[in-house]
């Protein structure tokens, strides 16, 4: 008697449906939550600069300071939400700048053969061959601190990532018959780029935006950690991490709080990126 016993599905598969296809939902929720905290938080929290020297290095869940206080007795929650506001503002703006420069140049290169394309692609290669953070340090050290220099440097150095990927997509779209058909029907170059190519690269662009946001947040934190990001007195996830180093053995939560915030934001953005990939491109990729 050969009875077929149904084999138990592997644990991964059983847990699978719980998460399958929900990256987008969780990612979007997490990112929205982070944005909400970053925008609303600073209004509700205490003054992040108010020092209370008799209440220094309090552990989390202390009276009146639920995340504790730092070495100068400043409320850690207030500093985290203000730091989050700063870090997110930097990440969003530099991502927008990078995406704008990268997409425009990529579309230009895809549309125009000849010297324009060569110039753009060679510039992309040149930028990608430099270690970004080192160049960023050099630039900021020369130009100076502040929101605008930081954002411009991060955006101005990371656009080639967008240019490279968008160029590849756009130039393949430019070969499509319907692009030729549109040109033969009298569409101008700009109209074709705006009406046929940009919508075609939009899914890729959205996915890249999510991932790039995470990259920029990490880059901002790294620069702030080195003292080149947020100006003195402006809390940022990176410089909070740097300050906490001296108290690592006395008050380890000082390090854990900003570190966890960075991880949380990066994971949320990556989750959103994965979810977008699944939603926008997954169907095409999975097709047999």
């Amino acid at each position: 008697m050969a009875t077929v016993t149904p084999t138990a599905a592997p644990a991964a598969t059983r847990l699978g449906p719980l998460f399958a296809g929900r990256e987008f939902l969780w990612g979007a929720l997490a990112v929205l939550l982070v944005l909400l905290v970053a925008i609303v938080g600073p209004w509700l929290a205490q003054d992040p600069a108010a020092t209370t020297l008799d209440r220094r290095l309090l552990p989390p869940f202390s009276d009146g300071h639920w995340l504790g206080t730092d070495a100068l007795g400043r409320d850690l929650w207030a500093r985290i939400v203000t730091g989050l506001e700063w870090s997110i503002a930097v990440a969003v703006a530099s991502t927008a700048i990078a995406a704008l420069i990268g997409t425009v140049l990529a579309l230009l290169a895809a549309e125009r053969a000849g010297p324009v394309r060569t110039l753009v692609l060679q510039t992309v290669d040149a930028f990608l061959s430099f270690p970004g953070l080192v160049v960023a340090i050099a630039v900021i050290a020369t130009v100076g601190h502040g929101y605008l220099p930081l954002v411009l440097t991060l955006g101005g150095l990371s656009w080639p990532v967008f240019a490279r990927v968008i160029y590849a997509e756009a130039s393949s779209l430019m070969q499509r018959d319907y692009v030729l058909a549109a040109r033969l029907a009298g569409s101008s170059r700009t109209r074709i780029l705006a009406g046929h190519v940009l919508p075609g690269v939009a899914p890729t662009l959205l996915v890249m935006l999510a991932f790039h946001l995470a990259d920029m947040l990490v880059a901002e934190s790294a620069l702030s950690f080195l003292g080149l990001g947020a100006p003195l007195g402006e809390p940022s996830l990176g410089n909070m991490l740097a300050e906490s180093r001296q108290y690592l053995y006395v008050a380890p939560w000082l390090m854990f709080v900003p570190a966890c915030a960075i991880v949380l934001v990066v994971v949320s953005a990556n989750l959103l990126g994965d979810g977008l990939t699944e939603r926008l491109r997954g169907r095409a990729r999975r097709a047999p």
Partner: protein
Amino acid sequence: MSTPDAPHAGGTARAAGKPVPASSPVGSPALDLQDLRVDFPTPLGEVGIVDGVSLSIARGEALGMVGESGSGKTMIALACLRMVPEPGRVAATRLRVADRDLLALDEPALCAVRGADVGVVFQNPMTAFNPVRTIGEQLAATWLRHRPAGGARPSRREARERAIAALREVGIAAPERRVDAYPHQMSGGMLQRALIAHAMINQPALIVADEPTTALDATVQAQILDLLRARLANAGLLLVTHDLGVAAEICDRVAVVYAGRVVEVGPARELLESPRHPYTQALLAAAPRLDPERRPLAPIPGAPPSPADLVAGCRYAPRCPRAVPRCGERPRLAPEGPHAYACWNPADDARRAKP
């Protein structure tokens, strides 16, 4: 074709006996090409893909352009819109579409001509529409783009109505519903109809159809050809094909292209019944026929020449069974008249030879 005063010579000589429509306006031909050249710069020097082609198409006339792959027929078609791909260059002594001198126009003005004065029907209708926009949107966009500046700007609703009407004209059932369909929701034949509607939506003077039936089922091909012919009205049709049968079916005149040159041009029936150029003869001998007498197909020996190494004189000479010493000299299209051929040693006139 060489005399500018008689560009309709072929058009009026409707060999099949079809009368010229009375509405056909005398005057500007749909297309008037004189000595067209398309050159591509290469490391080895300029390569002439199209070399001295002269053609004209009258209003309401269909000209079939027949030739092998790589003979330059698509280049000629694209040159009619000044749309030769980079880095190709178009030169001609005359390139006019409905009295517009395309050689004198700059890029924005050319954009205004494309889609308005010239409509294009593609080989593969499945890829000629943007898959993420509805058929109606794409038809309406082409219509809206070519509304004259100034005056009341037509509403979206008007454009939609126009798209529905265009779809109805090409025989698409329930155009009110089809106008909102995406390309993947329609069959190949229906999409080709929609593409014809797209090409004709601005009532162009010239329609260029580049192998419009190659991607379609045999059963749909005849319908599409009939549709093209029937909707032609006052427009001229340049039908690019490698199928002599397709050309014979709907065209008034046929031009045979070899290696970037027109080797023979004439009224469709006359050219097919009594081809004078050896290449045309060979093409006909290579085409399968539904004849009671069964005979093997005769392939043309050799391969079409690469544009990079062409012989001087007649380009067909190396493959030609009738080649004579004089073939080293370039033959011109002769005699003047509806049926002309570029050959020093043409075949006998099959019609005259028979008693």
